[in-house]
């Protein structure tokens, strides 16, 4: 428990220090102790880095979907997740839509660190609001509670989101 709280404090601190917006700063982040399958030991620094980068990815995703700018995904997303989000942004732009995602709570748990160290899988139970705009006219707002399965893979200096999928 102490470890979970420590990570929580560090991650939230990192998020605020990184200058996240008000919505992100208010998001509650809870990290449950890892429930790892696999032989690989997950160092605390690795865990903290992965979670920090994942929360940064949410920040980038929010901005990209709000501004319909897929280029904002480049740093934090790769592979399937990047392709799908990019396509979504193109579809939004074509339809005259943009969306605002405001994450209110993240409940995180790392569940798999692959033996060769090239992927981390985590579960994030997220509470967030989605507001849909059609040509800047608000169409609908809805609160969502969803369980996300996330795959992260290492890049040069950070973890990138390769799969981001709600159930």
């Amino acid at each position, binding site marked *: 428990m102490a470890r979970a709280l420590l990570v929580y404090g560090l991650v939230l601190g990192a998020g605020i220090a990184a200058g996240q917006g008000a919505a992100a700063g208010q998001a509650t982040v809870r990290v449950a102790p890892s429930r790892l*399958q*696999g*032989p690989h030991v997950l160092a605390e620094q690795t865990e903290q880095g992965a979670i920090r980068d994942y929360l940064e990815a949410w920040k980038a*995703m929010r901005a990209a*979907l709000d501004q319909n700018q897929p280029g904002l995904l480049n740093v934090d997303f790769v592979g*399937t997740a990047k*392709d*799908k*989000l990019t*396509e*979504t942004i193109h*579809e*939004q732009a074509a*339809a*005259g*839509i943009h*969306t605002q995602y405001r994450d209110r709570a993240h409940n995180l748990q790392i*569940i*798999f660190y*692959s*033996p*060769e160290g*090239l*992927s981390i*899988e985590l*579960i994030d139970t997220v509470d967030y609001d*989605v507001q*849909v705009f*059609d040509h800047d006219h608000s*169409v*609908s707002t*809805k609160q*969502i509670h*969803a369980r996300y*399965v996330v*795959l992260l893979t290492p890049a040069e200096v950070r973890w990138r989101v390769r*799969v*981001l*999928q*709600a*159930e």
Partner: protein
Amino acid sequence: MIRRFAIALILFVLAAPATIAQGGSLTVPDSVAAGSAFSIHTSGSGQGTLYIVGLGQVIKRDVQLGDAAFIAEGSLHNAGQYLVILTGNGPTETQTLAVTPAAQPADLTFLAKPSRLPVGLHDGITGAVYVFDAYGNLITAPVPVNFELSSPSEPAQTRTVITQDGAAWTEMNSTAHQGSDKFVAHVGSVASTRIVGQVPGDPCGLQMTASPADQRKVKLATAPVRDCNGNAVPDGTIVTFTEAYGNSQSTVDVPIKRGVAEVEMPAHPGAVISVASGVVMGNQIHWERP
């Protein structure tokens, strides 16, 4: 006449709000499989706009309220949570729709390590698999994954592992014989193969013999250098010969050529000559004048 007019007026007044406020309402399935065809039923009359909005996809189309909006096979194919929004001439209605991964695996991401290792290592090879459907969605429902490590000279090692949240992993032993082994992950008819090179391990039972080369030199030669499983240690592996006599010591590093290492060293009577490769020690010889 007046009575008929009054009845007609009452009926009109009662009916009017229903007609004017007949914005749409939605009937949406709770969940659908990715890529499957389904319908969203609307009620009301007039024109409306249907939005399906999620992180994975966005669909917007005009609909005739009262009709069903048909979502064709393959149209909504990215798994995730979606908002289904209907706007019309009345209040906007919003519901949620879960798109789940298709049940049929179509692709694997197979991470195997290492690509090359010494023979005979227990749990020396690891493999991890993520299972995806035809649309690139991670299949999070449990799926059996068969891992098989096969070599030409030994029976295959097999493991069956059930995925948890889309992932499965295993460990395998490297085999006793050098060569290229196939490491295969199967899910149903989908397979992914990696080649794992197995190289000889450290030398085992390193032995040398000594014979006079001439009056001043002794010729040292190892027996064919092999690992503990009998695999020839590759040429180029360094063998170190050390000769100690009195307070002096000479050391020569020699690469293996054609399976053996050979060298000539000064023939000092009473010298102690030893051989090693890395941390593996071989035999010792006390050299006396022949």
